[in-house]
């Protein structure tokens, strides 16, 4: 059974990569926003570009994965193709993990491109032993968050609209736009509840020479993954009761 599930998870992710993610709309959704956003900050203060890189990577991770999940899950639920996957010897959890893995891989491609591009352009040398686990955990977190919102709503636009609330809350409160220490206490508290805050913190460690550890950030991110993936599985199971 486990072998069946593993095979299907892989096949579903591989198929999604081919048919959806490598298409222009998905790519632009995942990449246009982070780049536009970074450009805006760059134009405001061109000298601080280095400071922006962890934020840019974090945005790429957030937007590429969540946009992708809405496409693969919502569209497929509407077209009935998701149902077809369940006819195969695979559990509902397996189908969902396949979808999340697809979002993860798509985000990974986008993130790798953005990271390599900026690092090469301005000669940054991040600590890869920190960057890779933090980015990978974050990709899983936001891919499963996208999945949770996608199984929760019937229409693509609904899922995208409702995703925008936490997405923009996170963009503004993750410490990239304003330093968290400069926020009023209630906002500081909220920012601690948002996964992107830990992504940014971890990525900053990877890009600084400072000898701090991203261990706590990684543990919190792993916790968020669990927090999103299990309710998403439950919701999907409920749809097939």
């Amino acid at each position, binding site marked *: 059974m486990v072998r069946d599930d593993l095979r299907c998870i892989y*096949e579903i992710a591989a*198929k999604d990569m081919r*048919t959806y993610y490598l298409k222009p709309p998905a790519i632009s959704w995942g990449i246009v926003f982070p780049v536009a956003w970074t450009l805006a900050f760059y134009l405001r203060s061109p000298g601080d570009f280095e400071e922006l890189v962890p934020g840019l990577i974090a945005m790429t991770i957030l937007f590429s994965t969540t946009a992708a999940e809405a496409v693969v899950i919502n569209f497929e639920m509407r077209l*009935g*193709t998701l149902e077809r996957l*369940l*006819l*195969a*010897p695979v559990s509902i959890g397996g189908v969902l993990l396949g979808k999340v893995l697809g979002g993860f891989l798509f985000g990974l491609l986008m993130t790798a491109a953005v990271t390599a591009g900026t690092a090469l352009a301005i000669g940054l040398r991040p600590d890869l032993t920190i960057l890779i686990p933090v980015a990978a955990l974050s990709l899983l977190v936001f891919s499963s968050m996208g999945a949770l919102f996608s199984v929760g709503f019937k229409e693509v636009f609904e899922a995208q609209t409702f995703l925008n609330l936490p997405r923009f809350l996170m963009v503004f409160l993750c410490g990239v736009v304003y330093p968290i220490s400069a926020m009023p206490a209630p906002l500081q508290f909220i920012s601690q509840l948002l996964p992107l805050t830990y992504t940014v913190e971890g990525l900053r460690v990877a890009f600084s020479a400072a000898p701090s550890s991203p261990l706590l950030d990684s543990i919190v991110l792993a916790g968020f993954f669990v927090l999103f993936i299990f309710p998403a599985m439950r919701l999907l199971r409920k749809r*097939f009761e």
Partner: protein
Amino acid sequence: MKAIEVRGLTKRFGSLTAVEDVSFEVEEGEVLGLLGPNGSGKTTTIRMLVGLSRPSEGDARVLGFDLSSGIHKAKRGIGVVPDSSNLYEELSARDNLLFMAKLYGVPKGVREERTEELLRAFGLFERRNDRFGTFSRGMKRSLTIAAALVHDPKLLFLDEPTVGLDVVAARSLRDLISDLHHRGLTIVLTTHYLEEADRLCDRIVILVKGRVVAVDTPRELKRSAEEGSVIEATFRGATSDHSADLSARLPGSKVVVLDGTRLKILGGDPTRVLEELVGFSRSHDLGLEAVNSMRPSLEDAFVSITGLSPAVMAKEKGGR
């Protein structure tokens, strides 16, 4: 071993009971038809049997595995053709089949071979590299059936295989289903076309409002209708306004209005029916033109068993 044993299957959606205490069995190698008007619970029954929906009550054994303890192990032996053709529009015919084969774990070498074989058998080989989205309805339906066969199942579920197809496409699909039957596949198909059930099925389960009202071979079903008698009467005048009166005169029979001047009387003692027909035509001054005794069709059997008018079966769901 039976291919399927269904015991007291029930499905409720809120206050609506879509399937109620349904039981039947399917022998290995037979074609069983679930026949009933739209909304009678055919799709819901199939969805429960293939693990897409959980029964509210009851259980079933499919290929020796109980639904309640998880149908996972049985899935390898089951092929399903859902009521809509839901393959990936953006994948080619061939890629769709290959993808399904991969999901079922068909080994690589076998996969390619089987895909090609099916594409040829279903007459789609020339179009193998075209996207599914560009296919006609009939071709889509064919490929959806092919996709259900890539892993060489023993048991095939077909939900309304020919709905929405033109006559030619429907006929060729029925021939295909007959072929599969002759190759030993066990088939469960749903339909609301009486002649389709008659032609294809070894046995028929008639469902009305989620309940089983009859289970038998098409022949026995017809014979049970024959016991009554089927009499068709043609009048000179219009009868439609008076058919209720004839029904009242013949409490043991069912009166069906065929058109303005023709009535069909199912069941009842023939002598009695003829007497009443004469009395009826006199009292309304209709003039009896012709009286024929007919062999009952499956439609007649359906009407006398369910009490439903044949027009109910002709109602299609919205297009797909």
